[in-house]
């Protein structure tokens, strides 16, 4: 596809056709992107019988929130919500607090075995979460940590750290060295430099790390599925999975409502910081 800017002055007809093609493609792509979401969201306002009606109607007959009320007032819902929020908050805090130090060390200091140690942290990014689930399960069982927050927090944090170190050391590297007093003698001064200078300047990188870690922890599925079997430990995605599995006759409006309820918080967080996230991804890709 040609670049519009170069043709705009030269040939207006060409420009108009190019724009028309771009808008057509964009519309088609948005239909593909939003069709599952729209079908799911509009169903949350329908009754179970309504979903069987032909000819197909996307919009519900009346706007009723009965499914939302049913989900949100369910006795065990607060438990699933608490588990998800708790795991997400602790994992994100731990990830940021732990990752700023190696990020600083790798971007600012020179030390022996630096490259080997960096590789040790970066290679695990290539190891998919699902593939280590089975040996981790064995470790967790032998440590007596099945059905504990500890097991989930450790495994969540561990899989979030490499990405966080990678993003943060990139951001730290782009901060000019003159800004900080590099002649610190002890840990106290280092901590001051970190929290008074580095973190405020690198705030966009920290936000990127927070959003990605929140997304991972909020949506996590294989670990919580494998390392817990008690209903009190379930997170929202786990319960959503159980929900679609246990209902004899599938109440699709109710299932969809649960799905939408689980994704609204993450979308709200995203839209608050969307500019930082998209530019964070693009900057990350440029490195």
């Amino acid at each position: 596809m040609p670049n519009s800017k170069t043709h705009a002055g030269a040939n207006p007809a060409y420009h108009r056709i190019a724009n028309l093609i771009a808008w057509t493609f964009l519309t088609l792509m948005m239909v593909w992107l939003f069709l599952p979401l729209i079908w799911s969201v509009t169903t949350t306002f329908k009754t179970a019988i309504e979903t069987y009606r032909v000819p197909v109607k996307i919009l519900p007959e009346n706007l009723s929130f009965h499914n939302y009320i049913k989900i949100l007032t369910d006795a065990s819902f607060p438990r699933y919500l608490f588990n998800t929020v708790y795991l997400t908050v602790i994992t994100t805090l731990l990830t940021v607090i732990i990752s700023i130090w190696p990020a600083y060390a790798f971007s600012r200091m020179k030390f022996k075995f630096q490259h080997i140690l960096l590789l040790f942290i970066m290679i695990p990014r290539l190891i998919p979460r699902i593939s280590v689930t089975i040996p981790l399960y064995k470790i967790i069982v032998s440590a007596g940590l099945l059905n504990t927050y500890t097991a989930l927090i450790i495994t969540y944090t561990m899989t979030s750290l490499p990405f966080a170190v990678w993003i943060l050391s990139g951001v730290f590297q782009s901060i000019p060295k003159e800004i900080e007093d590099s002649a610190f003698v002890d840990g106290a001064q280092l901590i001051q430099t970190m929290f008074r200078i580095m973190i405020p300047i690198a705030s966009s990188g920290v936000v990127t790390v927070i959003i990605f870690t929140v997304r991972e922890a909020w949506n996590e599925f294989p670990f919580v599925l494998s390392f817990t079997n008690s209903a009190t430990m379930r997170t929202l995605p786990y319960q959503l999975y159980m929900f679609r599995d246990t209902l004899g006759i599938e109440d699709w409006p109710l299932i969809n409502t649960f799905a939408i309820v689980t994704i609204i918080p993450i979308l709200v967080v995203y839209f608050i910081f969307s500019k930082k996230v998209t530019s964070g991804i693009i900057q990350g890709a440029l490195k």
Partner: protein
Amino acid sequence: MKTSLFHKRRKNLMPYLMVIPTILLVTGVLGYAILIALKDSFYKYPLLSFNAKGTFVGFDNYAKLLADYNFQNAVGVTFIFVFGTVLLGIILSFILALSIYHLKNKARIFRTLTLIPYLISGVAAAIMWRFLFNGEVGFINHVIRTLGGTPISWLSNRYLALMVVTLANVWKMFPMSTMLLLAGLQVIDPDIYDAATVDGSNWHSTFFKITLPLLGSYLATSLIWLTFGSFNMFNIIYPLTSGGPNRATEVMAIYMYDLAFQHLDFSSASVVMIFLLMLNLGFSIFYSRIFRNKV
């Protein structure tokens, strides 16, 4: 004198103190996990007691697995699934990225909206796609019925189920590869296009001779993203089809998971895990060879 030496020591130790917690958590735990799996892949355990002392059986587990029809099936399904995702994913990413790029600021909001499927959980995405293609109440069959056609049982047909799972996966994966391509398009200098227009280059030769080569490294990153994400896909397929019907959508990750947690065969599951890790490694090398000059 004594204190300054002491401080110097401390300062030399500092970077290691800063790096150690991450190394212990990431390399320590993951490394240990991989070693356990490697050991298990050579051992046999009595059923239901995988923590008991096993017996060393050499490559028996590997031989048994390679001869197993279900394992061969999982490898085949994985490759079809990955190939389908990468092919469709890269085409759709290209179309969307070029459209957003072409429309510049008018399409800014679409850049934000594109990322939505990437943010929602695999389970929620699976539920939506299961509902979309549901036999009785799915949108697709409702449209077919409305048009007077016969509804199709999408998820009970081998080929159609694999297609639905692949489509759902593309839907979840392609936002990120679109963003990566968009990043690449944004760094191409517009002057190059001016020069091409002056030289009388038409749009397709501009695209194939200028845009595509300059996009090289971003295209590579997108392909790597699509490949690795799909190779180890579990989150979408497990809630969508659980690997069915009749193992038609059982990729290696699902096969491994069921071996361990349904059949409690941790030795065979460990062998599948070693194969998965080796395939990941193989693909990393493959991609770094192809894109050696570009990444």
